[in-house]
């Protein structure tokens, strides 16, 4: 190979210049890579107002962007899981489920359970379902003046929403949307989590006794260990490969900001989740009691839209399907989406594959 140094040429560069340029670019990329891993992206930017608080829980109302008249009459309450931050529903402008629903004329409310402190270690599902959620619903009804409302529960938020719908069927819940709902744990071989926590040697009481609340790091590691190569290796290689693609980098950064924002889970709630749901499958067996009240799926009468992620490794489809035969809802539908636990709502294809279907189903039942 002949190295030619031609200072007069503006288009061609010498190999030495090429090397320098590439090193410079690599250094810049590495700096950006480091920044993306350590700094938070701007997320949850849809304008909202805080309208209610109780302990760490907060209820937000998103500022409507559609005038009263074309807006849907029935408000929508979003309930996310208790061990992650709820802003995955409002990840970034242009790619936010909340923004999408607000623009499509829904009056949207978001329940943020907050970050439990050591003093909240005794919080159980009894409290979430029978102390917090009824008060949230009462506030929502007072603010909107509507006697009816729709509720969308995702992951453990779907579990909480389902139990609420069973215990308070006359509270005005018209439409219930469940996303990747972990409800049926009869198959102990389905999904890594179920297998791990159903093992006779796995003792949630000892974990809770040791920590009070289950550390976020423990939950995060558990979730990531279900797909270790994808989460610990491929994820970062994929970022590096696409580091010069601004839109991909923005998407990755927003999602990583959410993933890194880990929170603990109230100890008593964790113990109850593992023992009463994962190990004993009480909800499906019909033996679950919250504050002495039997939770009967046959009392769930709200219109039901059950969204299942076909490639969900956290809540395998079999944990969400069984509920359809046990509820009393006349209007019920299962909707299957190709994708994973989070991807179906926050992934790049969500605005085409999932959100419009939720909008179409809910829109027809919200006036």
């Amino acid at each position: 190979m002949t190295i030619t140094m031609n200072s007069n040429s503006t288009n061609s560069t010498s190999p030495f210049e090429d090397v320098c340029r590439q090193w410079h670019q690599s250094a810049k990329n590495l700096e950006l890579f480091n920044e993306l891993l350590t700094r938070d992206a701007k997320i949850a930017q849809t304008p909202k107002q805080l309208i209610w608080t109780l302990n760490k829980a907060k209820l937000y109302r998103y500022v409507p962007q559609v005038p009263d008249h074309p807006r849907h009459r029935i408000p929508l309450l979003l309930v996310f899981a208790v061990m992650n931050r709820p802003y995955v529903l409002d990840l970034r402008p242009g790619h936010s489920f909340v923004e999408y629903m607000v623009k499509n004329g829904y009056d949207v409310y978001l329940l943020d359970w907050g970050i439990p402190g050591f003093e909240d270690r005794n919080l159980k599902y009894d409290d979430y379902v029978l102390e917090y959620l009824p008060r949230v619903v009462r506030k929502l009804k007072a603010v909107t003046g509507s006697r009816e409302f729709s509720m969308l529960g995702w992951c453990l938020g779907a579990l909480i929403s389902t139990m609420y719908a069973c215990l308070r069927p006359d509270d005005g819940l018209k439409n219930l949307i469940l996303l990747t709902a972990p409800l049926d744990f009869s198959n102990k071989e389905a999904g890594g989590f179920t297998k791990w926590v159903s093992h006779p040697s796995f003792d949630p009481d000892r974990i809770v006794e040791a920590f009070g609340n289950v550390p976020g790091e423990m939950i995060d590691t558990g979730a990531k260990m279900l797909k270790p190569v994808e989460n610990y290796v491929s994820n970062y290689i994929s970022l590096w490969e696409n580091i010069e693609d601004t839109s991909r980098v923005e998407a990755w950064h927003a999602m990583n900001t959410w993933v890194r924002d880990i929170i603990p889970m109230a100890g008593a709630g964790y113990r109850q989740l593992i023992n009463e749901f994962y190990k004993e499958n009480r909800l499906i067996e019909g033996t679950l009691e919250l504050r002495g009240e039997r939770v009967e799926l046959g009392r769930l009468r709200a219109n039901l839209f059950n969204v299942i992620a076909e490639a969900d490794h956290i809540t395998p489809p079999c944990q969400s399907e069984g509920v359809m035969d046990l509820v009393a809802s006349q209007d019920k539908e299962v909707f299957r989406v190709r994708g994973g636990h989070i991807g179906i709502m926050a992934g790049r294809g969500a605005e085409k594959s999932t959100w419009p279907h939720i909008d179409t189903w809910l829109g027809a039942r919200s006036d």
Partner: protein
Amino acid sequence: MSENSETPDVFDPFGIMKNVRDANMESWAKAMTEFVNSDSFTAAQAEMLNAWLATSTPFRKLLEETLSKSMQALKLPTTDDFVRLAEQLTNIEMRLDDMEAKLDQFLESQQQTRYE
């Protein structure tokens, strides 16, 4: 000089990892997922967790008791005192929330009566 896309880029710090991944990633990911879902991993994980908790718990308890006794001796509030206080505050908050809702209901009914 022809460009060979298979040639590792020496300027890419992840170049070697990338090549390894392209060749083996899918099967590696599948094997690891199968491994973490296996009975042996499940049992080992539970046993390791138990062993760690069994060894760390006595030390942690001793530390907590010592701290608690020291705080009590110094007439300072302990963690348990703060927890009780926080729980009481939440209960008060719930009662206030209920009262606010009842008051709103009352005012609304008063307004309706006035209009009628």
